[in-house]
């Protein structure tokens, strides 16, 4: 306790120096926490956007469809989704089940033509799984078979608004071209680039008609209550649907995005390490100065009979005190920035256009704070501060007491 008091007084000996060092630690930790909150938030929103607008938690395909999903193989579809839907719906933990028909198409406003993905949805069951209905910002949700929803980005590109007519051209599963005139009933804004810029949403019956799928569907999307049980649910769904079908989680369907996310985290970790190294250099520098200028004092302590381990403890306490304050301030600022990012969010719309990025994340990114990370970063800050003190201390404690006493 007395040694801790001595260490505390020593820290206060050069208040400004200690403060600057603690600030270096703080900046490092604040950066770590803030970037982690941002990354967590982006990951969470990415997942949420994929789940809420594109895949649900799990998707069931006819065996073989997924391998060629990019090609929209309309001959490998779920021919009769209803029994499967009913079977899956009975599994405890399943919150919603809905079939969808996805197909490639082109839309024309009479002047320009754009490639898009047509999405046929079951108006009744779709809201069980997806939030598309709540994403309508202008106009109305689908009411009749002739209605379509388009994304705000596509509307802007094609100069369309609710009430406008547009023509959709596609080829059915037999290779026959079909064209149909639709009335835009509403505009949706999900900030998921697929839906906002590249998709046309219509009633599943219309999609079936255009693609000659009969009563079939290209996929069945499933929402579950507890995401942590996703693997368990997949097994149960597989058992319920049988060998002719296969079930994928949204993470598998978007593996490339989540791999990028892992890579981002690695980069973030590396940046954090660089920041920590810079902070550590600051502490080493401060402690080196503190130790060098106090070598005669170390000599006096040695003359009094203090052993190296006791002297080391005094300096470790000093490093620890600086680290503790730096970490406290760092965590506090990190928390403040994180709360800001959670409550207000950061608007990246002026920085990039998500349609160009093809990355399912909103312009307004909200953070997501991990309390375990917060505690880990706090302890890490203190630990690093204590450990880096050992290095400059080695020189001082190795000196003979006499050499330390006469050290200038």
């Amino acid at each position: 306790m007395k040694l801790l008091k001595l260490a505390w007084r020593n820290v206060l000996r050069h208040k400004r120096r200690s403060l600057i060092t603690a600030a270096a630690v703080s900046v490092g930790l604040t950066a770590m926490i803030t970037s982690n909150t941002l990354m967590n938030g982006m990951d969470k929103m990415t997942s949420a956007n994929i789940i809420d607008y594109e895949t649900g938690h799990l998707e069931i395909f006819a065996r073989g469809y997924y391998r060629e999903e990019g090609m929209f193989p309309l001959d490998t579809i779920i021919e009769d989704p209803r029994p499967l839907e009913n079977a899956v719906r009975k599994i405890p933990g399943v919150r919603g089940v809905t079939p969808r028909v996805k197909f490639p198409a082109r839309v024309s406003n009479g002047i320009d033509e754009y490639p898009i993905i047509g999405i046929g949805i079951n108006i009744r069951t779709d809201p069980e799984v997806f939030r598309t209905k709540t994403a309508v910002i202008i106009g109305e949700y689908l009411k009749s078979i002739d209605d379509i929803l388009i994304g705000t980005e596509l509307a802007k590109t094609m100069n369309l608004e609710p009430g406008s007519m547009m023509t959709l051209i596609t080829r059915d599963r037999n290779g026959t071209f079909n064209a149909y005139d639709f009335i835009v009933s509403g505009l949706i804004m999900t900030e998921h680039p697929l839906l906002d810029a590249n998709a046309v949403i219509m009633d599943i019956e219309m999609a079936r008609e255009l693609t000659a799928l009969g009563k079939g569907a290209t996929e069945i999307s499933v929402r579950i209550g507890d995401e942590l049980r996703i693997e368990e649910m997949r097994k149960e769904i597989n058992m319920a649907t049988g060998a002719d079908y296969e079930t994928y989680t949204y993470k598998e369907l978007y593996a490339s995005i989540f791999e990028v996310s892992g890579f981002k985290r690695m980069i973030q970790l590396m940046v954090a390490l660089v920041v920590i190294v810079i902070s550590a250099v600051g502490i080493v520098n401060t402690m080196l100065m503190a130790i060098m200028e106090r070598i005669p004092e170390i000599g006096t302590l040695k003359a009094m009979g203090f052993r190296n381990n006791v002297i080391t403890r005094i300096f470790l306490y000093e490093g620890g005190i600086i680290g503790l304050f730096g970490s406290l301030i760092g965590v506090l600022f990190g928390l403040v920035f994180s709360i800001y990012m959670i409550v207000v969010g950061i608007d990246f719309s002026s920085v990039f256009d998500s349609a160009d990025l093809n990355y399912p994340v909103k312009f307004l990114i909200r953070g997501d704070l991990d309390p375990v990370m917060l505690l880990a970063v706090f302890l890490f800050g203190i630990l690093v501060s204590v450990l880096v003190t050992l290095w400059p201390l080695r020189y001082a404690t190795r000196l003979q007491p006499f050499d330390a006493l006469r050290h200038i």
Partner: protein
Amino acid sequence: MIETRGVYKDYQVGQVLYPALRGIDVTIKGGEFAAIAGPSGSGKTTLLNIIGCLDTMTKGDVLIDGVSIKKLSGSEKAKLRGNKIGFIFQTFNLIPVLTAYENVEMPLLILKISETEKELRITDMLNEVGLAEYVHRRPNEMSGGQQQRVAIARALVKNPAMVLADEPTANLDSSTGRGILELMKDLNQRHGTTFVFSTHDQLVMDFADRIIMLRDGKVISDENKPNRKGSTR
């Protein structure tokens, strides 16, 4: 009792080997008030540092209460210093962030004694050196003489067998220096603690019961002053 046996110490300065001590044989008995005197570079501080286990010797041995320090490890030497030896330095060497009380407390932190005993010893010691009123002052709030008194209290608070003082009056004016010497002499007589000084100050030599004169690393005279109390050679 301190016994040096053919102590040699060489310093390497660049390419040159500089002999600081060339075979010192001295015996200082318990309770002595002895001065190691001599001009600058005669080796007095070096001898004091070797006796106090602060520095190593090149050749020879030192026995403290019959125990050879030559074979002691760094940790054992630290223990010996902590238990038996008090130091007083020319530059006082107080810890600037600690008060007079806390400075005197420092050597007791590594000894196993109760808090009550500690308090009693520190208060008594500060009373003895006449600093009862200054317990809460830090070194920068005290005069040189007062700081040296704190250093004396710090050296004596653990009841050491000996106190080694390296030019204790060199940074003090003569009247303050005299006061410090009178205090040390008094403590030597009342506590029976051995005091060994290194000095080239005539005043210190006047107070000493025994003067061991060094020149060029050798003892050139070893003189007792039998009329003074405390001389036991």
